[in-house]
């Protein structure tokens, strides 16, 4: 009743109370927000254990975990920054690093952090989280090389006791595995692709490209090189596989390999948790991992590897606390023990950790038939070349690869078109940097 009669006085009183309540909450505690893309129930629980342990060891520091799907992570970072509600700590895909650095999104690590990373991480992985001037921008986490993951049972049923080691064998086995019923429904597919997802298309393409002696960008990252003769051969492989029925973009390698309907897929190690839980394939007895088959212009198996990193937002009011938290998560807690994040990466995801102490401490966990093959591949896989505008180039390439698989264009035309656009993007980024 009072508020009805004296609304202005009432409004002022409410504002005063809110102000007092806010002042009461404002203590010396620090709250850090961490944004990651690890959002499944198990992953959230595992991350919370790490966060709780840190908060217990560091009273006065509160950590809030925010997770979004990978497809929305970049958008979340960008919109959060624009809205002035950015997280303090990011875990993000290293391809975005040049864009974020150019825009001033990231805070430079402290000298202690730089030294720690430098001393405990292999140079190739350090390069993957550094800009071209050599500046390291964060703690590298998972290293993900690509390999051929195959279903031993389906290969055996098709009459093969070993995975393909050349493209000819890949085409032959893929065709042999594929089964189409009388109505034209594909009940079983040789090689699964992941249409509609840029990484799912471009990373396997790049792995095959490197195994065919090709390269993605020039060494100085100034022009595209995926349109080389080796690149055209790689894309022709996709066209041949579609023509022979060895692959079909309407079947998702990501979804249908775990259900036991796809014979082979080119994939990264973080898939282990999914495969272990899969009902259509037995992880221990049916999942095999092999090197990427070698193309006609290649002389040895090769692959591509991408990395993620933890970094701090330059707008964070608590940068020192944020770097301390990241360091704590990645550092070995006691001599011979791995880090909390290393444990999470290896045991919750099946990914390969970047830090030497984690690779040593969790060697046993990485010695299973699945991850051990990826560990071996990480020694020779080419790190994904990061460059400003890299995400746009990758998406353009994905679309053209899909166009070739759909029979809409030829490999030569497709790669020439993307290369021209990629070169224009790289040139534009160079000019932007000079401005």
């Amino acid at each position, binding site marked *: 009743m009072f508020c009805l009669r004296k609304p202005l006085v009432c409004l002022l009183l409410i504002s005063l109370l809110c102000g007092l309540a806010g002042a009461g909450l404002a203590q010396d505690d620090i709250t850090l927000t961490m944004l990651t893309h690890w959002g499944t129930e198990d992953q959230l629980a595992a991350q919370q254990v790490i966060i709780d342990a840190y908060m217990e060891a560091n009273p006065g520091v509160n950590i809030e975990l925010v997770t979004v799907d990978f497809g929305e992570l*970049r*958008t979340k970072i*960008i*919109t959060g*920054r*624009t809205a002035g509600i950015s997280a303090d700590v990011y875990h993000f895909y290293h391809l975005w690093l040049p*864009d*974020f650095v*150019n*825009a*001033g*999104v990231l805070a430079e690590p402290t000298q202690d952090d730089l030294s720690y990373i430098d001393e405990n991480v292999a140079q190739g992985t350090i390069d993957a989280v550094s800009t071209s001037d050599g500046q390291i921008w964060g703690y590298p986490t998972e290293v993900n090389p690509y390999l051929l993951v195959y279903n031993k049972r389906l290969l055996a049923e098709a009459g093969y006791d070993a995975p393909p080691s050349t493209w000819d064998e890949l085409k032959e086995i893929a065709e042999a595995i594929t089964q189409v019923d009388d*109505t*034209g*429904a*594909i*009940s079983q597919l040789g090689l699964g692709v992941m*249409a*509609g997802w840029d990484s799912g298309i471009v990373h396997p393409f790049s792995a095959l490209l490197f195994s065919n002696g090709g390269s993605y960008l020039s060494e100085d990252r100034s022009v595209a090189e995926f349109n080389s003769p080796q690149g055209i051969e790689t894309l022709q492989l996709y066209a041949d596989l579609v023509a022979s029925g060895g692959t079909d*973009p*309407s*079947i998702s390698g990501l979804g249908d390999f775990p259900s036991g309907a796809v014979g082979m897929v080119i994939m990264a190690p973080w898939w282990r948790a999914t495969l272990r839980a899969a009902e259509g394939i037995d992880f221990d007895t049916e999942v095999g991992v092999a090197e990427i088959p070698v193309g006609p212009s290649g002389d040895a198996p090769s692959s591509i590897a991408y990395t993620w990193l933890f970094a701090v937002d330059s707008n964070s009011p608590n940068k020192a606390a944020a770097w301390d938290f990241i360091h704590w998560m990645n550092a070995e807690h006691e001599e011979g023990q791995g880090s909390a994040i290393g444990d999470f990466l290896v045991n919750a995801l099946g990914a390969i950790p970047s830090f030497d102490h984690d690779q040593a401490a969790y060697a046993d966990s990485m010695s299973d038939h699945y991850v051990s093959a990826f560990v071996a591949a990480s020694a020779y896989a080419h790190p994904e070349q990061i460059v400003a*505008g890299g*995400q*746009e180039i990758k*998406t353009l390439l994905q*679309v*053209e690869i*899909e*166009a070739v*698989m*759909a029979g*809409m264009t030829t490999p030569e035309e497709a790669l020439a*078109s993307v290369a021209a656009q990629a070169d224009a993007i790289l040139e534009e980024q160079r000019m*932007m940097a000079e*401005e």
Partner: protein
Amino acid sequence: MKLNLSAKSAWWTPDIPKSPLMRRRMLWAYAFISLPILALLVFLLGPILFSGWVSLHRWDMLSPVGEMPWRGLSNYVFLLTKDSVFGKALGNTFLFAIGGVGANTILGLGFALLLNSPIRGRRVWRVLYFMPVITAPLALAVMFSFIFDRNFGVVNSVITSLGLPRQPFLSAPSQSLLTLIFIAVYQYIGYYIVIFLAGLQGIPQDYYDAAQVDGAGRRQEFRFITLPLLKPVMLFVVVTNTIGALQVFDLVFATTGGAPANSSMTVVLHMYNTAFKFSRMGRASAMAFILFGIILLITVIQVRLLRDRAYQD
């Protein structure tokens, strides 16, 4: 509060109440009105003006607004001359709009005529047709992804059981857009049926009675009474449906994402990707203004054509 409408030169000048109570009430009225006006300025006009300004710059949404490099009309020039995806998206969007608007108008009117006639279970049919309208668009999109699946979808099961060849639908460039048009029509036709039905029920029965006395048949009644008197409704249906179709996003985002090979890419989805995936907010804003111009032009043409005819009739 009373407006002094008698004085034409100062029609907007309100009477100032003399009593303090009335004055306080008027103050509150202005306070309440000012909030939506302020909201309109801040959340509608402000962003439009800002977006226009951004379209003349290169902005990644991460750098400070004050440091956006000036690009003049280069974003517009790039989109209209070099961006092949934009051209493709524009073509797809037009096809989507033409197919969707055409189907919704013809089928919507046809079903409305049926539902306006004394058929059995008329109310049940009306509810059934309207149900997709109140279903979440993303839920529908996911449902249809399964229904139209090349290998395990229900539609293909039916097709193949009839001895017809299996169709790829959403996974083939030649069929993805057509399939999306079908889903969109399924989703919104109930809404347009209701609009047409309201229009049909607004036509006085006397006209039909008089026509029957004059010996007119059903077809003549439809041609010379129903259709002319429905033209204002037709105008509403065509204009609102066209505007909505040219802005299609959620359905495409949730089903194909523009794939395969941009065969189902639409302007707003390309705008979204350009802004948030490639961090080119300037170019995306330019796209928004080009689309706005196109929608405005089409709407003006539609209104002129249909309104003039409606009045002539």
